[in-house]
Every structure is written in C-alpha cells, then in structure tokens.
C-alpha cells in the first residue's frame, strides 16, 4: 500500500516549497470605536507536506486567519497566497474555482450534504468541477478512511465519526494543494477524534498532503508537525515537533 502511495505522490519531501502564505495580513471587523482587529498583521507560510496546527485562546483570530487564507473571507489589508495565486485579486467566481480545485475543507460539524451518499459526498468537489475521479486513488482514500463498506450510506445513517471520515476523504480525494480543517474533532468523542487525527497524519506521511488545522485541543495539536500560537490577532509563538504536554504548558501561559 505504501509503495503504491509513494508512486502517486508528486513532490519529494526534499524539495519543500510553500503551499500558502500570508504577508502583513490584517482583518478588521466593523469601523470606528467598535472596530475589532481580528488579525493585526500576520506573516506566515505553510510548507508543502507539512501538518500545521493553529492554536490560541478564543478570539485570538485563529479561525479568521484560516478563513482569510482559504478565500472564504477577504483581508482588510495585506496579502494571502495559495501557491503563487494572490487571493485579494480574485473574483468570487475565481475564489470558488480555487477552493474547488486547490483546497480541501473539514469543518467541525454539518460537514456533509444530507441528500448524497457517503461516496457521492466524497466525490462532490470533483463532480462540481466536472473532473473524472481517479478510480484507484478514490479506492485508496476510501479504504484508508475505512469507509469502503459504507460508501452508499447517507449521512443520517452514519455516526458522527463516520461522517467526519467521509469529510476527510472528501478533502483528500481531489489531491488539493492544501487542506483546511476547522476544529475537525470538536464534535467527536475522544476515541473517534483520535481516529480522525490519525487519518490526517497518515495523509501527510503517506501522500505528502499539506494540512492546516485550527484547534484548541492540545492533544489534537500534538499530531501536527508544527504549532503556531496566536493571541490578539498576532503570532506569538511557534513550536516544532510538538507533544501534548508542551502545548498545554504553552497554552497555560496565555492565561497569565
């Protein structure tokens, strides 16, 4: 399986490039006295094949950063790039096409279209793009997330964990440049959450997938290669090869 996977992975780890980056990213909600500076000038890059976790207390701007980098929310000033594409210059149509072709999404809840079966949900972005799925690749992903024998079930026939596995598969199946995950384990029990994180880790290891995950769970963050800490809309710290205890220690210091 690993050999097969290696065959389909495009970029060797040695030649790492930047999958997405933000320069002087600012996001202000509202105006005047009520203005909220959600992002106060963030510079950050996400390397290809790297699993990055963004952490920080509530209101630190971590979700805003992700939304802005994914083209879901425009920056007030500064720049955001997916690959070499600058987002601020794109129309809604082009942003949509960019999301469809280059990005994958995993949300906290309500991740699937209820009228479609598991496999239809997974293939939806490809169908929307009118692209033919690569059957071997789809098979590999479906098997990897363990949904091979439930592919024709509808979301209401699946458990929360199974639904989230479908969402992971959907995010991966189009071989996006980058997968954004917004609290992907927030609605799951611990055991199921661990499974989902393991799949995501697996995708990075085996398929060289780039993943950016927003989380407040130190244990989830420990699956990442790198943790970026945000507070008050600014990057305040960074940790490579994190483990849960060190992340907890760092998070505790925000309370001080």
């Amino acid at each position: 399986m690993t050999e097969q996977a290696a065959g389909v992975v495009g970029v060797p780890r040695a030649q790492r490039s930047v999958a997405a980056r933000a320069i002087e990213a600012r996001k202000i909600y509202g105006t005047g006295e009520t203005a909220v500076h959600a992002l106060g000038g963030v510079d950050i890059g996400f390397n290809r094949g790297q699993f990055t976790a963004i952490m920080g207390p509530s209101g630190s701007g971590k979700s805003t950063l992700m939304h802005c980098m994914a083209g879901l929310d425009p920056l007030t000033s500064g720049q955001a790039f997916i690959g070499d594409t600058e987002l601020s210059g794109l129309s809604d149509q082009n942003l949509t096409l960019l999301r469809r072709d280059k990005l994958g999404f995993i949300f906290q809840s309500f991740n699937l279209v209820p009228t479609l079966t598991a496999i239809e949900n997974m293939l939806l972005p490809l169908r929307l793009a009118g692209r033919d799925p690569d059957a071997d690749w789809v098979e590999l992903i479906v098997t990897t997330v363990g949904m091979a024998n439930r592919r024709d079930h509808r979301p209401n026939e699946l458990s929360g964990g199974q639904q989230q596995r479908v969402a992971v598969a959907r995010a991966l199946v189009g071989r996006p440049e980058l997968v954004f995950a917004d609290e992907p384990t927030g609605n799951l029990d611990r055991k199921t959450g661990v499974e989902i994180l393991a799949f995501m880790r697996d995708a990075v290891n085996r398929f060289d997938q780039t993943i950016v995950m927003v989380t407040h769970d130190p244990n989830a963050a420990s699956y990442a290669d790198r943790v970026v800490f945000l507070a008050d809309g600014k990057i305040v710290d960074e940790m490579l090869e994190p483990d849960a205890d060190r992340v907890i220690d760092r998070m505790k210091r925000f309370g001080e």
Partner: protein
Amino acid sequence: MKGSMLTIAVRGVRNNPFRFVATGLAIVLGIGFFVGTSVLTASVSQTLNSSVTQAFSNVDAAVQSSSFIEAQGFKIRPRISRDLIPKIEAVPQAAAVAPFVTGYAQVVGSDGKVLSGGSPSAFAWISQKRLNPLHLVSGHAPAGENQLVVDQGSFVDGHFHLGQKVRLLPLGADQLFTVVGVMEYKSSNQEAQRLVALSQAGAARVFATTEVNQVFVAARSGTTDSQLVAAVAKVLPKGVETETGAQFRTDLQNALGSIVSFISTALRIFAAVALIVGAFIIYNTFSITVAQRTREMALLRAIGATRRQVTRSVVAESLVIGVVSSIAGTLFGLLLGWLALLLFASLGVRLGTSIALPAGGLIAGVLLGTLITLLAAVIPARRAARTPPIAALRAVAADVVGSSRARATVGTCLVAAGVAVVGLSIGSAAPRPLLAGGILLLAGVLTAGPVIARPLAMVVGAPMARFRDPVGDLARQNAARNPRRTSTTAAALMIGVTLVAAATVFASTLRSSLKEQTSGQIKTSLVVSVDSSAAVAGGGLDPNLEGTIGQVPGVTLVSPLRTSIGEQGGSLISVSGINPATASRAFDPGVDAGSLDALAHNGTVAVSGGTARAKGLRVGSSVRLQLSQKTLDLKVVALYEHNQVMGNWVVGNGVFDATVSGRPLDSLILVNTVPSDTARAEGSIAGLLSDNPTATVQTAAAYAKAQGDQVNTLLYVMYGLLGFSVLVALIGIVNTLALSIFERTREIGLLRAVGMTRRQLASTIRYEAGIVGLIGTILGLGLGIIFGWLASVAARKTFPVFVMPWSSLVLIAVVGLLCGIVAGVLPARRAAKFNVLAAIASE
C-alpha cells in the same frame, strides 16, 4: 399569558417578513381576483340598471304582445300592430302615446367596415320627447325615410360628420342614409353602443314591417300608473297586454342582469379555483414555517406553555396575516376591477363608466381571506402544539415525511374506485357518474401525493441529472427530500394545469367535431356567411344575393338557409328556412326518412332525429310550433340525423317567409361551382359581397374550420382566467423554495465552501423549482386529459369526434417546466447571495 402569546405571534410576523410576504401574496392574489370579479359585475349591472331606469323613466305603461318566449332572462315578444295606437290615444287617462320599434341594423363606417363592439341595433325615433329614451347631442331628429342619427361613440369611431351619407346593414349599398344628428341615452352614465335611430318611416323600411315592439304610454297628471294600465287594458284586443312602466323596466333590468349574473357566476368559479389554490399555498407555508420553528415551539413548551397556548399563537399569527393580506387583497381587487373596466373600454366594450363598490363583495373578500388563512393554519398549528418539549434539545428540525402506508393505501383505493366508476359508466356516458369518477381520481392523486412525490421527482429529474451533473442530480435529490412539501407545492399547480388541460382536450373535441360535422353536412364547394356578431344581433344576407350569385360564371347551384327563433312545447327553438328545390343538393344532414324535397308543400316540417325521438315524432306525425306570433300546425315530412348546419327544425322558405315578420335574411348561402371555376367564382362572389362588410365567402373546408375555431375564443378566455390560479401556484413554488433554502442555509454554505460556484448553486435551485413545476404539470396534464376525455365521452352524442391535441399538451408541459424554472429564479438569486462564512456558521 394570552397577551404574551399574541406578542410572540406579532413578533413572529415582524421578524420574518419574507415568509409572510409570500404567504400574504397568495392571499392577496386569490382574494384580489375574487373581489375584482364582484367589483366588475357590480359596476356593469349598476351602469345597466341606472341607464335603463333613467332612459325609460317616463314610460308609465307599456303595451306589448302577451305571448313571449323566455330565454336566459330575455322575454322575446313578437311585434304587435300599429293600428292599436289610435285606440290607446283615445283612452282619456293617456297623455302621450308612442310606438317603440327596435330591431337589427348596423351602420357601416367611413372605411367600409362595420364598427366593432356593442350590440348593433336600431330604434325608431319617438317624437314625443318625454317617452323617447334618447336625446340629441347635436344635429336634428331623423325625418323621412333616409335620415338617421347615430350614438356618440359610433360618431367618433366611425369618423362620421353630419350630412355624411352612410350605409346601413342589412340594406344594400344602393340605399344610403344621411347622418343628421348625434344622440345619447337620457341617462348620465351610459353610452349607447352601436345604436342608430331612424324615423318611423325609415324603421318600417329597414325592418320591412310597420309593426311595433311596444307602445309606450304616459299618464295624464293625477292618474296613477295602475289606473292607466287598467284603462288601457280595456281597449286592447286578445293577445296584447299592458304593464306598468315599473314592471317594464324591471323586465328590462332582469334581462340585462341575467347576462351579468351569468358572467359573474363564471368569473366566481375561476375566482374560487384561485382561492383553493391559494389555500394550498397558505397551508404549505404554515406547515413549513411551523416545522422550522419546532425548536422554538418546544422551547415554549419546555418553559411551561400549554399545547393550547402554542396552537393559539400559530392561529393568532395566521389571523394577523389573514386580516392584513385580505384587506390588501380587497384593495387589489378594486384595482383589478377598475383595470378590467378600462381594458374592456379600450376594446370598445363600454361596460360602465363608473366603478361600483359592492359592500357585500368587499366584506366577503376580507372575511373569506381571513377564514381561509385561519383554516389553512389550523392543521400546522395543532401539529406545532404536539411538539414534545424534548425536541428543543434536538438539533435538526425537519418536516415530517408523510409517506405513510395508510396514505398510499387510501390513495390507491380512491384511484381504483375512480377508475372503476369511470369504467362502469363509460358505456352509458352519463355525465354524473363520470364526474364522480373523475373527482375520485383527483382525490386519490391528492391523497397519494406525498407518497408519489419522491419517485416522481427522481423520474422527472432524471434527464437533468443525466445531462447536468451534478447540478441536476442535487436538484432532484432536493426536490425528493421533502415529499409532503413538494407534493403540496406541486398540487397547487396541478389544479390549475388540470383545468387548463381538461379545457384544451374538450375544446379539441368540440373543435374537431364542429369542423367535421359542418364539412360533412355541406355538399357545395363554397359557403357565403355573415360574421357571428352580426348574426347574433339579427343580421344576415340580403336574399337578393341568391339571384346575383346564381349569375356568376361557374356557379351551378345556390341554396340559402335562414333562421328565426320559435317555440315548441314551451321551449325556445331555432327554425331554419330552406329552398326545397335546391336544399337536398346543397345540404347533407343525413336524411333517414322522407325527403327534404317534400318541404315544397305548404304546412310541412323536417325534424332532426334526436329531437324527433325526444318528442315522439315520425314522418307523417303532426306538430304544433310557434314562429313569430303565429301558431303553425305542421306535418313532419323528413327526419335527418345531423343538426350542426340546419338545426333541429327546418321548414320551406315559403312557410318561413309567410310566417316570420319583417325582412327575411339569409344566414348562409351554399354555392356549388364547376370544380375548375371554384377559385374564380370565389373571387367574383367576394366582389359581390364587398358592400356588406359582415359577409364572407369561403371554401366549404375553410368555413368548416372557422366553425370549429370559434371554440378558440372561449378557450383563450378560459386560459386567461385560469392563468390567475397558475400564477398563485407559481408564487407557491417561489414561497416553498425560498423557505427551503432558508432552512438549508448551512448546507448551501458547505456546498459553496467545497467549490460550488454561484452559478451552479443558482441552477440547482432553478432546476429544483423546474422539477416541482414539472411534477405539478405532469400530474395536472394526466388528470386534465382524463377529465377532458370524460367530458368528451359524456358529450359524444353531440360532439362525436375526439382528437387528442398533442401539440397543445406538449406546449402546456413545456410552459409548466419553464414556469417552474422562472419561479426558481428569485430564490436562486437569494441563495447565491448568501455569504459563505455566515451560512456555514448559521444555526
């Protein structure tokens, strides 16, 4: 607590304006149509009534024939002799006596065409001013045989000027009249329409009789109307009676009112259909909004609201919407009624100059709208009250899927019963069982709707799913996900389409039957006829034409047909007069017994088979009928099968002309030609007809087709009226869809996030609307075809030719699909505008 539930209801309306605008719109349209029709009919009858009352207000007694034929409120009386006038003048209580003469005459405009609209007729000018219903606006009264006065509208429309020489039908082009004046009714708010006034001598010439329709009498001062009537009655011979002016005016009003009430009944039926469709929409809206608010309701229950209180809050909400929209609908109805009057006026039909405000109709509009809204809200309200408090804690609020086995069973049974009833009664073609069978079918389909909606959506949407992947597939899944909602939305459209399709199918039967019967009963190559509006007013072709046409090269046979109204066995009949020497070579009514040639003998009649069977007549029997004021005892000499062209009673021209008073006019002249000369003869005859703008010459085939196509006018009027209920149904689609996308906000956000473009999203929603529209259209077409076919079966004795109008039906299906897609445009645009992030984050 009562007050606070009302507060919640009011807040509910205020906080969700869109869903109430949509519900309200359905009520506004339905009630608007209803009120509009009553405003229209009230305005028309007000105008007619007041004009009649005012114009004839000085008539204290009217003398007329005591025998009459009553048809739809009209009392048709034969004319009486003018010799009575001196006798009445001798009555001491009579201050003034005037002959009233009226009949068909139609003035030809300066452009050589007859003026359209109105009901063309002529009065003889009454010189006694107080008894004359007309007064001069300019010029002078007609004097001598060759002068006439026209009404103001005709004066303008015909571009006449005083002193102008004009033609007057039915007289020929060689007899011209001079326009010497312009007149109006002696009433402020009614225009005379296509009316000319002639001198008494001129009327005698045009109507070819000196007889009079009525004699008007004015009483000497101090004499009451009833004293006058009693005095006048003493000098009258048998067969002539007198009544007071008040009774005379009441009779006139009733006659005019019966047309108005016939039209208003027809309009009410269409208004009722629009209201029923509206009720579906209102019910659906409340069902959906209540389902969406399950959590809110459950929360209210959890914090201590009783079931009754929850029910009451929904009902109160419906009351707020019902009252507000019904008032708006009533105002809209006033506007519609006014617009309709303007529209008719612009078409040359001046129905009324002032708008009437029928208090009853307006109040009924408000009450009806409120009541319907309340009723439509009751079921969802009770459902809301059953919401268990625990539902507040559950995440998803969804409409209950109503595809129960019971529903499927009952629906199937109803359909089966309908089919059985239809099957059993098809042989006898009895209308009532057929109608009952049809209604059972309709009820079955409505009951089974939620069960069949899902499979139907999947099948109907299959082509879209096939060719517009994935947008079409998503649309079809969405249409299938809430079968009850989809079926109710589609049912509203289905009702309108059913009626449209039924009318289309039945009209096709009428059209093709009329066409085939007409062409089958005419043996000649050409037909000369008068246009139907002139024919209805009593117009026709000058019998002298027969001879002229006979001299056209290539013409081998000329055979006329004239008709008049008579009475037999207490009911109104139409009697035709033919030329026995030529008729059997021109007409082919399928003579079963005897011969049309025998009509050459005096005192003979031919009768259609259907009538003969009903009356127990056979060749040799004798029958008594009334024609004009004369009673005829006739011997039956022929029986024939087909009555389309000749009608049910036919006499020879000798009998006809000797009996019918006034100028005989042909309604039809059949002309046969040498085949090679037909086209040339047609041209020559057209030249002969050029001085009668109401006359046309056509080939027999074209005439037959035109006979059939007369049905189209009625069909298009029905389309227009049914259009209203279809419009209401389309608003229902907009409504349901708008509420559904509101419910699916998060899902839409998700789809957009994973790469669905705005355009794809909008198409998905438009297709969903198209699928719902198509379901309604297909079910409606199916039922409509069945209904139309059943009506055709019931009428097959009279209209035996059944032709399925496939192209019209396909057109209806396409229009239905397009209407659905158009209905989806607004919700689609709304959904496409959703902010992706806000949508994902929404609760």
